[in-house]
């Protein structure tokens, strides 16, 4: 009957999902910590030389790529996210205010959401091609000489610029979708009231729209930070598995924290590398965890109007 607890039956229904989660989610979660504390672990021989508390983390931090990865990741996170949030906000508000062709433009702005990061990354790399690229052609209109953005021997800063442009572009669709949904939930009465008072458009934007949308803006910003910390596929798309323009040094690499994880994992056969990958993934986890914490604090406070 209804109130009766149906433990056995419930677990039968849960069994397939739970078994899979146990093997491929929960066990890996704990194992990542276990691996990170093993000294000189070899997964091929299944041997380790005891335990170490910070050894693997120190190895990660002292890795030549670590500083680069932290720098790159931070730039991607703290430059691309605010820009794309702002641009997305403006586009959403503009889109929400028009009637004609709104559906068509919506579809256009949503398009990048479904696309393949690798494929579009390649397209962007070609847009930034020194000789055949669209971007230099565009600069040429203003009399600027072609820049070697991502080609052979391109500098870190130009490559990073191109990557940021791509990252902002790639992040717009999702944010516009969410903002538009939020805007459509705002009661039209506020706007009618503002209209009756003949409030100028920019004031409507800054005094009504943004404050009413503030919880959503905060949510999107933080989840986008978390998402951007995991940047990797975009870089593979633009620069390939080496994660840097051809003919450049590893200090000019565009490697990210996730890149570090996969870098170590690709050398899994070497002693200690798996542990380093685990340690790097834990560092990433702790960073995202702190952002999740911030988000929870904010959503509790509810920074409404």
């Amino acid at each position, binding site marked *: 009957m209804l109130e009766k607890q149906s433990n056995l039956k419930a677990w039968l229904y849960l069994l397939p999902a739970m078994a899979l989660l146990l093997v491929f*989610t929960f066990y890996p979660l704990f194992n990542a910590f276990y691996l990170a504390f093993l000294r000189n672990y070899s997964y091929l021989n299944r041997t380790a030389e005891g335990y170490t508390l910070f050894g693997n983390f120190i190895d990660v931090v002292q890795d030549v790529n670590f500083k680069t990865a932290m720098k790159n990741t931070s730039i991607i996170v703290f430059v691309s996210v605010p820009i794309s949030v702002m641009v997305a906000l403006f586009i959403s508000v503009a889109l929400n205010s028009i009637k004609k062709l709104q559906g068509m433009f919506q579809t256009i702005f949503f398009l990048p959401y479904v696309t393949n990061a690798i494929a579009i990354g390649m397209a962007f790399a070609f847009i930034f091609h020194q000789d055949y690229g669209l971007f230099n052609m565009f600069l040429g209109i203003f009399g600027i000489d072609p820049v070697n953005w991502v080609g052979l021997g391109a500098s870190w800063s130009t490559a990073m610029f191109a990557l940021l442009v791509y990252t902002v572009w790639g992040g717009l669709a999702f944010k516009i979708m969410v903002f538009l949904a939020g805007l459509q939930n705002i009661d039209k009465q506020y706007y009618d009231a503002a209209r009756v008072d003949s409030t100028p458009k920019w004031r409507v934007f800054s005094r009504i729209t943004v404050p009413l949308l503030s919880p959503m803006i905060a949510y999107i910003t933080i989840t986008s930070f978390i998402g951007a910390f995991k940047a990797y596929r975009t870089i593979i798309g633009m620069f390939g598995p080496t994660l840097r323009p051809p003919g450049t040094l590893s200090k000019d690499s565009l490697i990210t924290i996730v890149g570090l994880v996969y870098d170590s994992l690709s050398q899994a056969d070497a002693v200690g590398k798996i542990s380093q990958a685990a340690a790097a993934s834990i560092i990433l986890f702790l960073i995202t965890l702190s952002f999740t914490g911030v988000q929870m604090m904010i959503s509790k406070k509810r920074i409404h109007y």
Partner: protein
Amino acid sequence: MEKINKVIIKEEKIDIKESKRREIISKVIIYAFIVFFAIIVLIPFYWMILTSLKTLDQIESEIPPTLWVSFKNMMFVNYLNALEAAPYLRYMLNTVIVATISTVGTIFTTIFAAFAFARLNFKGRDIIFMVLISTMMIPGEMFVITNYITVSRLGWYSPFSQTFGQALLALTLPFMTSIFYIFFLRQAFKQIPDELYLASKVDGTSDFKYLWRIMVPIAKPTIITITILNAMGTWSAYIWPNLVTKEVEYRLVTNGLRNAYLDLTGRVAYNEQMAAAMIVTFPLLVVFLLLKKYIMRGVSRSGIKG
């Protein structure tokens, strides 16, 4: 007698023409802004298509590049060449197989688990659900490491030998369920009124039959969303297939993209490269345009993709 305080309201002259003019100007600015960004959003797609239809000589000789190719000059042959440069047809077949297996698997495990969480009453339900939800914020890389080891230990992947069957197991089994989809479907199930369940109980419907005859049909839009998202995820999978397949032929479409596209003389064949990118992108765009409604449902609930 009461004294009446009069507030004197002065009528302000409103210049209708002036306000009309302003209205039009702001409309123009807004549309210009939208069109500008719409073009920026479309450029990579356009550039991809355009480049994929040019000859390599054209690409290399036209500086600055031309922005149009007339129909009679379109080099559709680039697509054929791109398909031959990497085992693309094989990749597509693999992708379809992997997507089918993992999606069917995911749908089943998800439906059962979501049903248990939404409908059944069992000990520890809320705690278990909370634990599941909280693992959603953990970056996937943490799982990948051990899953790579697990898959190797189970003998499904080794750098020395691997059968297609083993590759399929490695490619699908870890993705046969998803906490996010369980959560998503549970929400949809929860919206079905309890009375429907009670009504079916009065009629002697078993839980299992209620799930398949009533809940699943009602939650069909959500299940379609899950199917689409999952299939698209497989289509765009890159890292995991790269990690756990030994043979190049066992990989998926997206893996083919990082192939070296060179022409006979060793030049980078940008047109073929872009054709390949287009081959991967085009189906996604079509699916999106056709099934936008379903995909959008998922967006409102998902955090961040990727």
